[in-house]
């Protein structure tokens, strides 16, 4: 038997009796999918919140400490050669 005919035979075999879709399948999928989407949205919100808090924290620290100014030298240069 040719490969094509064998494949057609299997296709017919696969096209046998179809199962009945239970009525609760769709509402259950919607319920779970919505919960998943909600959880994902909440996670994203928390992430943004953390990012915002980190930014604010950095700004406060920077305005208090002025990390861009050079710290004063706390030691005089060694006295040599006189």
């Amino acid at each position, binding site marked *: 038997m040719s490969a094509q005919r064998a494949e057609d035979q299997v296709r017919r075999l*696969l096209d*046998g009796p179809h199962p009945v*879709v239970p009525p609760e399948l*769709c509402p259950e999928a*919607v*319920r*779970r999918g919505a919960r*998943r989407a909600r959880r994902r949205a909440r996670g994203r919100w928390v992430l943004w919140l953390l990012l915002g808090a980190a930014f604010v924290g950095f700004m406060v620290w920077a305005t208090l400490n002025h990390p861009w100014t050079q710290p004063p030298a706390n030691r005089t240069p060694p006295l040599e050669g006189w």
Partner: protein
Amino acid sequence: MRPRQARQQVLHAREFESFVAGAAGRLLHAATLLTAEPPDANPCARRLLTDALARTYADWDRLRGEDPYDRARQELAARFARSAWRAHRGRGGVLGALGPQERLVVVLRLGEGVAEEQVAALLGLPAERVRAICARSVAELVRS
């Protein structure tokens, strides 16, 4: 919840319901073939399909023009492939004689008509391997 969001959610749910009404029969058939259960007693296939559809619903607003049927089928196949190492030994069904991976290839290639390259990409196998698995499974099914 804000009213805009609530309205959008209702819209999504309605779109999704009409999609499921059209596609669930065929998807459940494919799932039942995958789990190798008889059509009238298919708890594993139902669970598999419910999980896959839940994921499709959660991703509904991110489909961006992609065919939801393709997405759901892909999700179904990926879920089956992930869980294939347990349980799915098959309890009758048309493809009960085959292993999980062989069933997956046969259902996607011959039952759903997915291109060889796509099946290969989905399973993480080279295309020649998919062709070989398919040929072997067809020979096995025709023989039995």
